[in-house]
């Protein structure tokens, strides 16, 4: 029998078996679907938080507030130090008056508060826009510390600090996702295996006859692998559909909470969807392998 006709035979037998024992097959699909749904939920959160972090990293900015009453030469030395590294895209100087104007523009209702002040309310500053890769450069933190300790610097405000915290949070989310996903996928594999083992047990007479007349193990086990694959893929499709519905509902909801934006901002990418389908398929096949390994210990042709 050539491979194509063997695969067609496996597919036909697998479909027959799924239809014949549709109730237990449904339980297997549902269990795998739950495990895969949790995996895809964490993948979605990871994807959305990562893309948010990436977009924020693109607009990374450092503001160095200047000590008042310093020599111009010191300010220039600070500006040079700021411009020096390759990750600094541009540096601009903002005077104390400009800073006051910006404040009044941004918060017109509060502008009256600063109108009568003799001194400008905000210090002058140097603003530097930073390339995203700077965060991963080990020299970045040292450079930042040097800026902070500069005599002309009053204070250094860097977006990198809270981006780092968000990145740590993302790491935690990913870790929790991987752990929970593995737990649920293991449960899904074992459930699938138990169900396929039950199916194999129900078909033991037929399997025995196939072995008796000279079927190879590939021919005997093929339909079970395909059945596992179908169950896994069905579970993955179920998980993706459920996630899709939840994403749609979150998107159309009357009030969008921050967490809902973080989790469901954008649906899984094509690569993400294909990964979930692949994980589903592999989970199903693993279930079949485990079940047949157990069943194989009891194999025989005459029962």
């Amino acid at each position: 029998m050539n491979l194509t006709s063997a695969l067609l035979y496996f597919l036909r037998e697998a479909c027959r078996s799924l239809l014949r024992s549709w109730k237990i097959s449904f339980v297997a699909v549902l269990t795998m679907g739950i495990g895969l749904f949790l995996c895809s939920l964490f993948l979605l959160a990871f994807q959305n938080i990562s893309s948010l972090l990436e977009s924020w990293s693109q607009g990374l900015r450092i503001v160095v507030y200047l000590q008042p009453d310093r020599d111009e030469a010191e300010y220039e030395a600070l500006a040079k130090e700021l411009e020096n590294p390759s990750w600094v895209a541009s540096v601009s100087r903002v005077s104390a008056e400009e800073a006051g104007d910006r404040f009044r523009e941004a918060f017109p209702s509060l502008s009256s508060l600063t109108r009568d002040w003799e001194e400008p309310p905000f210090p002058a500053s140097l603003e530097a826009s930073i390339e995203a890769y700077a965060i991963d450069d080990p020299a970045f933190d040292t450079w930042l510390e040097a800026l902070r300790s500069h005599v002309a610097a009053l204070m250094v405000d860097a977006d990198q600090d809270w981006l780092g915290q968000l990145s740590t949070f993302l790491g935690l989310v990913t870790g929790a996702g991987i752990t929970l996903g593995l737990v649920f996928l293991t449960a899904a594999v074992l459930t699938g295996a138990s169900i396929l083992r039950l199916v194999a047990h129900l078909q033991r007479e037929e399997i025995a006859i196939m072995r008796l007349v000279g079927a190879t193990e590939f021919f005997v086990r093929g339909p079970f692998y395909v059945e596992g694959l179908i169950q896994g893929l069905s579970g993955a499709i179920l998980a993706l559909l459920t996630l899709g519905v939840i994403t749609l509902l979150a998107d159309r909801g009357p009030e969008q909470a921050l967490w809902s934006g973080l989790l469901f901002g954008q649906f899984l990418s094509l690569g993400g969807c294909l990964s979930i389908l692949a994980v589903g398929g592999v989970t199903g096949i693993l279930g079949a392998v485990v079940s047949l390994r157990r069943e194989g210990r009891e194999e025989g042709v005459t029962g």
Partner: protein
Amino acid sequence: MIEFFHVSKRYPSGPVALSEVSFRINRGELVFLTGPSGAGKTTLLKMIYREEVPDEGHILVNGRNVASLPRSKVPYLRRSVGVVFQSFKLIRRKTLFENVSYLPRILGLTASEQRRVCHEALSRVGLANRMDAFPSELSGGEQQRVTLARAMVSEPEILIADEPTGNLDAELSMDTLRLFLEFNSRGTTVFIATHDGELLKRAPGGRRLSLLKGRLVSDVQLPSPAADGGSSQVLAGDVGEAR
């Protein structure tokens, strides 16, 4: 064709199943294996198609040492050995065609070729017109004929049967024996385990191996129809007319 050399087998925590069994069966022979229950008949037959392996000794089937055959080669051995059981072992939810077509399908025959060879196999046992019937629609004798068709669908060189008439009445037993004799007359080596004395009396010749407590205690030629005054004439004359 089939050779046993000092074959012994003991099941774990059980009695000796076979002890120092040696014999040779030539191509085209008709051999009956007799002995009381527990004598080791089934174990001996299972060794021929490598369902069991001996603890000691060697078994050659068509020149291949079955005991040391790699697991991956066992299916190819089994394709050259047709097996019939007392309990038929038919799949009740499958039609006769589906029950008989396992091997043709495994061998990769097309759907029409499968249908053709199954039709031929069922014709030989007189059930060609019941291809789409289910086993539950058949009598016990007919079901045994289906298992015979399944065993012979690829025309193997060896046909072995374990108490094939154990579930059949006397008349149906004789009908089944006629079919075995017919396959034997076409050159198939037939090896039947039975403790049906009547079957042995009606057999037109052949050879009888007797087992007792795992030991081969006799190996005799059964009287041929001419030698026993013609008592087996009816069966011998019927060979080839089973259809």
